[in-house]
């Protein structure tokens, strides 16, 4: 039994939990972070799964980490460094390929091989997305606007927002409405004609969702991915030096320097409750730790169903929690390679292997993969987003050897046979991935020293991601902004007194953004909850 008392306990040392803790400590609060695993980071992690090789287990690229958070927490001082990812390479089964990179002229020539018309439109498209994104970007850096509020201050804010919107002009407003509601394919098809461009572009609209590229609502997610920036360079994505875990380590180091106490291998069993009030936590070893406020860095299901417990929840709240959809749809395959594999369409080393490699050869291919998942099977021919991080960051593999990170969709958590069947299907899933990739990289298999296959089930078991959903809850229209995670509870406060939520299951959602964590801390301090 611990006599320690903290101002705040943060459950879970994912990047949002750590950021929330750091901001609270910066404001002078005494903060304790409790992490179940042996290391911090949650899904923002990299591990030496195979000796000598650091796998980027989950998240593999970053661009949306808010610049103001990077500055406030002085992250570069603690080792945060992003190496820009310059290109996206898309090979096609017939040997042709599409290369899009930071050189506009080279990109234009590559697209022009498929459609000269599209090559011209592509240049303007980036600007168009930047224009549309102007509305969304500020919304990420503040709590979600609540249009149903009767609070005069909120109405004032909404009024100002409304004025801003109207000031943009009808055309811009209409374009945004369309963006929010259309499918990625429909949206892109209004502008582009060739499938070889539309298909790889459309996949940005489905990453981490349980949607297909023809599903309404995916054009919005497309825009979301277009809003990344690095060092002010808009729409650039990059590789964390040292692996994704370096980001979490930098945040943790900054947090510690601010006075945050971080304990790993300290799993929390549940909250200490006094009526409807949270007064602290109970660890799995029985230790009780008290605090003025508890902040959950876990997803909404885990927060309410495990930490709080159904018996402490109002039936209507419980119903809303259960209705929050968390269906995981992706898996990861991480490889240790004995050397570089060759792309059949462009053998040898080169920029085609250094950047992102996307397997998304056609609209039907991607849609069929989604169809399979809808009915409880992993895609036999999946979409893949591939990186060879070691080509940009040699620190993650021995010299001459490489790691490969393969993000895969679709791998539905809810298999037809039940989620618990994943251990039986894991290897077949891994095989489907490697077999499909081998069609484009024929000598891949002979290079493989080791492979790690993470199904949504594994993501849940190992990283605590309920149903393997990488965003702590689907980013569908009805689970965004003031509806995330529940209508009426989108400002980080929960129906349980003194319990707050600070991770991706709140606004503005998932990805390595850090905004939920920082906004939660800001809100808690503003309301003097801690």
């Amino acid at each position: 039994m611990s006599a320690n008392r903290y101002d705040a306990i943060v459950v879970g040392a994912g990047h949002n939990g750590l950021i929330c803790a750091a901001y609270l400590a910066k404001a002078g609060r005494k903060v304790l972070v409790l992490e179940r695993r042996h290391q911090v980071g949650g899904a923002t992690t990299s591990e030496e799964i195979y000796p000598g090789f650091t796998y980027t287990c989950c998240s593999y690229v970053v661009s949306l980490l808010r610049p103001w958070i990077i500055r406030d927490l002085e992250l570069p001082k603690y080792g945060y460094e992003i190496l820009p990812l310059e290109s996206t390479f898309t090979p096609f089964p017939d040997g042709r390929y599409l290369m899009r990179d930071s050189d506009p002229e080279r990109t234009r020539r590559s697209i022009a091989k498929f459609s000269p018309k599209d090559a011209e439109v592509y240049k303007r498209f980036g600007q168009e997305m930047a224009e549309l994104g102007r509305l969304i970007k500020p919304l990420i850096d503040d709590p979600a606007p609540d249009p149903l509020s009767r609070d005069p201050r909120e109405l004032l804010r909404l009024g100002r927002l409304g004025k801003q919107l109207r000031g943009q002009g009808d055309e811009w407003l209409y374009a945004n409405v369309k963006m929010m509601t259309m499918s990625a394919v429909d949206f892109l098809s209004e502008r582009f004609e060739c499938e070889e461009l539309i298909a790889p572009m459309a996949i940005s609209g489905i990453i981490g969702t349980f949607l297909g590229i023809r599903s309404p609502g995916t054009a919005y997610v497309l825009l979301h991915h277009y809003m990344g920036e690095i060092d002010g360079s808009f729409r650039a994505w990059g590789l964390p030096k040292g692996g994704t875990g370096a980001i979490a380590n930098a945040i943790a180091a900054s947090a510690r320097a601010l006075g945050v106490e971080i304990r790993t291998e300290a799993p929390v069993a549940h909250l200490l409750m006094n009526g409807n009030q949270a007064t602290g936590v109970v660890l799995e070893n029985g230790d009780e730790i008290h605090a003025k406020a508890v902040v959950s860095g876990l997803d909404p299901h885990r927060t309410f169903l495990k930490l709080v417990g159904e018996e402490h929840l109002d039936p209507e709240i419980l119903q809303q929690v259960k209705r929050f959809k968390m269906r995981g749809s992706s898996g990861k395959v991480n490889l240790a390679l004995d050397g570089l594999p060759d792309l059949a369409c462009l053998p040898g080393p080169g920029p085609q292997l250094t950047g992102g490699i996307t397997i998304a050869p056609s609209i039907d291919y991607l849609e069929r993969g989604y169809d399979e998942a809808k009915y409880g099977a992993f895609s036999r021919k999946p979409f893949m987003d591939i990186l060879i991080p070691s080509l940009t960051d040699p620190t993650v593999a021995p010299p001459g050897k490489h790691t490969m990170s393969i993000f895969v969709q679709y791998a539905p958590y809810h298999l037809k046979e039940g989620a618990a069947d994943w251990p039986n299907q894991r290897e077949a899933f891994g095989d489907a991935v490697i077999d499909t990739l081998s069609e484009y990289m024929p000598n891949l298999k002979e290079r493989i020293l080791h492979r790690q296959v993470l199904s949504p089930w594994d993501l849940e078991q190992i990283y605590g991601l309920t149903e393997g959903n990488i965003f702590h809850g689907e980013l569908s229209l009805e689970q965004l902004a003031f509806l995330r995670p529940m209508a009426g509870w989108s400002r980080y406060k929960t129906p349980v007194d003194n319990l707050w939520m600070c991770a991706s299951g709140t606004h503005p959602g998932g990805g390595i953004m850090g905004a939920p964590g920082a906004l939660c801390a800001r809100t808690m301090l503003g309301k003097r909850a801690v």
Partner: protein
Amino acid sequence: MRPDDAREAGRLMATPANTAIVIGAGPNGLAAATRLSQAGKKVLVVERAAAVGGLSARHEFHPGYAVAGILHDEALLPRAVAEKLGLPRHGLKFRRAPATYLAEASGPGLLLSSDTAAAVEAIGRRSAHDAKSYAAMRAFLDRITPLFASILSEPPPAISPGSAGDLWQIAKRGLSLFRIDRKDLLELARVAPMCVADYLNERFETPLLVEALAAPAVASTWSGPWSAGTMTNFLLRECAGGEAIEGGPPALIAALLAAARGAGAEIRTDTEVARIRLENGHVAGVTLASGETIDAKVVLSSADPKRTMLTLLAPGTLPLKIEEEFINLRARGTAAKVHLALSGPLELQGSEGLHDEAIRIGGGHVDDLERAFDAIKYRQFSEKPNLEIRVPTVADPSLAPTGHHTVSILASFAPYNLEGGWTDSAREKFGDAVIAVLEQHAPTVRSRIVAREVLSPADLETHFALTGGQLHHGEIALDQLLMMRPAPSAPRSKTTVPGLYLGGAGSHPGGGVRMTAGVLAAEAVLGG
């Protein structure tokens, strides 16, 4: 001058200044004509077919056998509009909508009455949980219906209020919004963007019920029950009138025709418009396919927006940007009509009565409906189509010889752009697929078929001048509703061409047997 005198004088000297031409004599065109005439305008309705009615006309597909409209469901018909136009005086009679029998492969099925209490009782025999849920759902829908009634009967608010009128619209909407309980508002905000499968699965454990309630929300759309936004269509349908009329859609047409003529409108059939003429950028009249020209300063088209703006207007008339809006308007038909002439009744095994007027047949699970939708993404038709069935002869035996019946089937999904095209062979194969599904529930049907007609979306396009064979003129999709319908440049019946109005299903509030779009366009004309 008294209004009658004015009309009389107008008839004697019909000048272009106060003449309006209405293109299309379906419910929207006739309703627009009635509204305009009743307000003193001289109206000429031009209809390309030999008879009025459009998709609501009586359709004789085989000598002696007819169905009551290609569109066979009046559930969206607004009573208020019908009364405003004086249609009851011209013979229109409302009746209670028939119950829908949900057929089940090996089971008694479920008779879903339009009366909530009766439906709850029927559902309760299968699942007490679902009965309770259904009652709660209906209660919620009833509470938010006033908001939807307002949305469905008025022009959509402008996105960028430029005038006081617009601001008042928004305020009124806001007031109406706040008269609804905050809890209901939150629930509405939460559910409107959802997919209908998630919403229904949250509430019901009976797969038959989930599929049957989901089906109307996706029929004729380019979406399946797992597509985001289908709840909006669900709400727009469930919170509409829900009534029926005696005589079905053709009776509406008859009443409209009488009302329009009674108010002084002239209707010409077998009269196809080839071109909408402009002079100095303003509407000047139309040129018919025959070559005849008619002058008018106002043309109100109830034809589909793509046809109106891209075919009836001369190419090059519209600025590129506006033209692109209409090119991008998605209007892909996704359903086919199948009509059967039967030598006896449609007997469904499991049904308690032989006289089901409305029937739904699906695979029994919402995933079957989704699978049916999957097909069209690959330019195929569903091998096991979902069927929305009406047996109009139950209510109106005159549609077939004594003792015989006709069956009207809306079959989903059948894509406009079928791979290989809608050849005779493709049409037959689809018809066979429909019969195969029907036969599983009505084993005697095959032996009773006297004749059958299959109208693919391509056929609907050809026979009814319906671009893409899309029954709503523009797909019902989240980005093609309200002020986005049919296009951002034409959200409230007016187009960027002075004098040209859009008042068909492609405008707000959409298609179905409805009239509202036509009336809103007429009011836009009158509003100046």
